[in-house]
């Protein structure tokens, strides 16, 4: 890439570097070659006389070397073919294109919306089917059995410990009197 560098960092004013704290904030840009010639010579002059800042820049250089990440990874061997087959798929029917654009814009929300709509549809259909099968088209005896069985979903089912407790509580004031 050969963009013009334009104005170098910190190239606006004539520097008078004496303070280590000022130099330390500029060392990163200095090491990257992103300071103006005036600042560069000032920092170099400071470094010649300051062992602490020399150590700081040595540490920066060592860090840069440490960032070498060994094995250069490579993409899959069929990477180009995979990309080409995808662009061939994309130039398919318009509806599929629209779906792809939508899902790539909102991947998670689109999936969740589809799942919610599907869940509502299935839930509604199953509820309707069960009601029709068990209550509407059943004999009165079967209806009574079904309703009794549904009692297990009540907060206090008949014959349960909870019902026994409530009965006891309702008797408690009478015992005191």
């Amino acid at each position, binding site marked *: 890439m050969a963009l013009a560098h334009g104005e170098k960092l910190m190239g606006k004013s004539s520097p008078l570097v004496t303070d280590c704290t000022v130099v330390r904030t500029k060392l990163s*840009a200095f090491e990257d070659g992103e300071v103006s010639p005036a600042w560069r010579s000032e920092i170099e002059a400071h470094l010649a006389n300051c062992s602490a800042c020399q150590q700081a820049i040595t540490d920066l250089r060592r860090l840069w070397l440490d960032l070498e990440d*060994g094995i250069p990874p490579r993409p899959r061997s069929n990477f*180009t073919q995979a990309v080409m087959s995808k662009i061939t798929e994309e130039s398919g029917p318009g509806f599929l294109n629209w779906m792809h654009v939508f899902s790539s814009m909102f991947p998670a929300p689109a999936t969740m919306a589809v799942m919610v709509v599907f869940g509502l549809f299935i839930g509604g259909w199953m509820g309707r089917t069960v009601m029709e099968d068990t209550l509407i088209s059943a004999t009165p005896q079967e209806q009574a059995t079904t309703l009794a069985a549904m009692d297990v979903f009540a907060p206090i089912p008949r014959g349960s410990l909870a019902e026994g407790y409530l009965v006891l509580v309702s008797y408690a004031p009478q015992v005191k009197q």
Partner: protein
Amino acid sequence: MLLVGEGDKFAFSCLVNRHQDTVFRFIYRFFGKEEEANDLAQEVFLRIWRFSKKYKPTSQFTTWLYILTVNVCKRESQSLWRRHISLIGSFWISGNSGAPEFPAHTPSPEDAVIHAEQSRLVLDAIESLPPNQRLALLLRRYEELSYQEISAVIGCSVSAVDALLVRAKAQLQKKLVPPKK
């Protein structure tokens, strides 16, 4: 690139061949996972194909390529879905959960162990940086872009790039360089 804009698939396949390594490695270093890097690199090239008609050769193609790559990385790292998955994953997997996957083709077993260990440390340290610092560091260290170019790719000022790099380097020094006795 102009041919690609006209829908020339052969020109596009040449472009993919030429730039796939750059895009893949950048994303691999950003996320530390080979499989994910492959998928997202594909996404970058699909975007190039989709937006090729809008491309105007006012700036270098590589700058545009980096902008698209960075946008894909940013979008992926901000994705709610991804954050939830990694949150769930952090409960399930222990020990070397953060360890990146390494390519199978290695020079020798000893080299592989040394390189893998070094790569794991470096990638883990880079992955611990906030996304913008990570982007700036990768563009500077591995892509060797100038501050001006990085500012154009990330979309911030040159001084902001400097600040990002200063913070990133300081944080990496804490993680990678052992403390002096």
